[in-house]
């Protein structure tokens, strides 16, 4: 009897201001890097369309099913900062959800960064600790399960996450690591004592990506149809992981996404052999059925399911190296005042916008990007990094 493990990623990046080469060396404060107005606008819009109504609906559903409907969240640090600055009610509603006992919180890096790919993992560890501190402060809770930025995962990361005391880690259920095996079980990293939860990407993307795709044979996806698919699934656990913005933002209200969510728990629970669990419950309840060996980093991004989304071309690699070198200098010189700006610039979205991948992935990149294409994204980000370098000396 498979358990349904529903988990949502909640993240908003700090988008950058237009910054031309003529600005390099000519601005006094780094706060001019970030486009506060745009970030506020987008945050308020998404809060209105997604965060507030979805939180309300989830709360209603948890009460209606007496805690049998359960979900997990990971909130990034940048997201929480927006809540505090612009709409504190959003964070209050997450607290209320958490209080029901049917909601779990997941750990990650505070800045949703690529620090897990640096040569040393000290910065990664610091950012995870910052996140841990934030969750402790907000929810008085210590998460047991970790999910790295966009589920980036390799053996080295697994080892580090175990060392930091987590019991479970989330990544993508890709054939690259599973071959013939099913994602509907827990696995163990070849080199660490940790339980790995693998995203069932077909069933997750049916909602996350395909819900409103009229050409998809599954369209229209109704709660009972979807619950039926889940009921027919084999294994211990069905991991349905997606962006929280799926509800009301990626798919607008008019697509019926909220009706779907409203009816989904009831339809699923009609099947006696299905139940809902949080990620912590999953690692307590199930044992690994096999090992996974991941020497090269995977992720849940794009069709490639690797890190080429952020490091797939020369421009992205140049920015990434620049960013790493800046960090090295900041730490060597002990310039603590520059640390938080450096970290904000590490949010993976800045590199995501510079991706030149074509075809269907490119469309997704375009949807999220505040720039007119990857080249503008590169110029703007690189100009800012160059200006930031001026502040180091």
């Amino acid at each position, binding site marked *: 009897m498979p358990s349904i493990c529903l988990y949502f990623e909640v993240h908003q990046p700090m988008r950058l201001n237009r910054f031309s*080469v003529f600005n390099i060396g000519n601005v006094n404060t780094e706060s001019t890097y970030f486009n506060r107005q745009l970030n506020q606008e987008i945050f308020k819009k998404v809060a209105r369309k997604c965060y507030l109504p979805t939180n309300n609906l989830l709360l209603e559903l948890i009460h209606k099913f007496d805690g049998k409907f359960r979900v997990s969240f990971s909130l990034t640090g940048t997201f929480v900062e927006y809540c505090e600055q612009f709409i504190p009610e959003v964070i209050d509603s997450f607290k209320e959800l958490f209080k029901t006992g049917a909601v779990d919180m997941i750990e990650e890096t505070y800045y949703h960064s690529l620090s897990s790919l640096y040569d040393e993992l000290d910065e990664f560890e610091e950012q995870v600790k910052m996140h841990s501190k934030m969750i402790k402060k907000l929810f008085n809770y210590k998460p047991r399960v970790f999910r790295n930025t966009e589920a980036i995962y390799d053996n080295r990361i697994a080892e580090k996450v175990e060392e930091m005391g987590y019991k479970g880690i989330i990544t993508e259920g890709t054939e690259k690591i599973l071959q013939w095996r099913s994602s509907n079980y827990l696995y163990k990293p070849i080199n660490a004592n940790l339980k790995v939860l693998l995203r069932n990407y077909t069933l997750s993307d049916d909602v996350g990506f395909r819900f409103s795709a009229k050409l998809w044979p599954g369209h229209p996806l109704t709660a009972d149809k979807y619950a039926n698919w889940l009921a027919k699934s084999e294994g211990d656990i069905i991991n349905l992981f997606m962006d929280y913005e799926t509800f009301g933002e990626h798919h607008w209200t008019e697509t019926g996404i909220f009706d779907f969510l409203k009816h989904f728990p009831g339809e699923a629970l009609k099947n006696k052999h299905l139940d809902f669990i949080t990620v912590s419950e999953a690692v307590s309840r199930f044992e690994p059925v096999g090992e996974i060996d991941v020497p090269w980093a995977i992720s849940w991004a794009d069709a490639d399911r690797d890190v080429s989304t952020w490091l797939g071309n020369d*421009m992205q690699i140049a920015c990434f190296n620049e960013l790493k070198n800046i960090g090295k200098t900041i730490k060597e010189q002990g310039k603590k005042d520059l640390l938080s700006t450096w970290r904000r610039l590490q949010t993976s979205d800045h590199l995501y916008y510079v991706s030149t991948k074509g075809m269907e992935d490119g469309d997704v990149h375009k949807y999220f990007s505040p720039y007119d294409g990857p*080249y503008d994204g590169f110029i703007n980000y690189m100009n800012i990094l160059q200006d930031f370098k001026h502040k180091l000396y």
Partner: protein
Amino acid sequence: MRVAMIGWEYPPFKAGGLATHCYGLTRSLADKGVRVDFYMPKTKHATGSDKPNLNIIEVGETEIFPYDRPDSKELAGQFFEAVYKYNDLVVSRVKGKYDAIHCHDWLTMKAGISIKEKTNTPLIITVHSTEYDRSGWLYPNQWFIDIEREGMEKADRVIAVSHFTKRVIVEKYGINPDKISVIHNAVYPIPENHKKDIVLFLGRLTIQKGAEFFLRAAQKVKDYEPDTQFVVAGIGDMLPRLITQALDLGISDKVIFTGRLTEEEVKHIYGISSVYVMPSVSEPFGITALEAISAGTPTIASKTAGFSEAFNNCLRVDFWDTDEMANKIISLIRYKPLHKTLAQEGKREIELFTWDRVADKTIEVYNGVI
């Protein structure tokens, strides 16, 4: 299928993208088994075809230069008269049975209409630019507009070189959008050469092409990248003003005006330039951008250019935003990974822009009216 195509320029005589288009299109059509008779004015240069399906027919001499803008009443009178004469000449020379008549731009539209009416043959018109484009949307000349409108109205089908141009045809000429097909241009790739620190403008020096904005951006780049050379290639009525402008901006030591270039020289300059800028005020398509990119030269194009609606791997600016134009030029010079990625990805995308594809789509249009 037999097509009478009526143009006014054909390589090696060439004043704009129209010649390039006619050359690529007729050759690819001929390869696909369409028999094309291409009618054009007699030129001083020898021209011809090595393909059995394709005949180049020179109908007679004319003094008309299609991009001339007659600026006095007297000159205008002579100009218009020459145009009518030439059209009459074309009508008298086009003989035989054709499945379709295909005209390019305003100059031969009158002839196209007469032949259509006389022989009851479907007429297709390709719009490479409108009077609004050529005038840079300042003081468009009603005489040209009227000819263009009549041609578009009487044509069975209109081909626009971009959605941008289709919109102009619908909004300014009141043509039914269902009658208009968009077919983007193509390019015969130009070889890449050893790159030098050259930022290139190449085009007619007319108000439409926006060379003045190129010079203003050059001045902004100069202090930041002093080793960079700017080249303005081409001729046109703006040349004296542009030379004066370069002096006034204090950049005459950084800018080279090449005058008219031969086809070989054009290829060479594309090949060795590091950045190509197409700051057109109004640009229905902009084949030069495809040419530059095919030679491995990253391109900054006007946002409204038809080319940039169809092409991903380029940089886009508002033609008047010379700060942003300079920002992008400097970035391309400074940031090698940007230059390399744009050059590589651009060349890859260019492979989609073939005359073969243009010919296929044009045949589809022919089939729709025959």
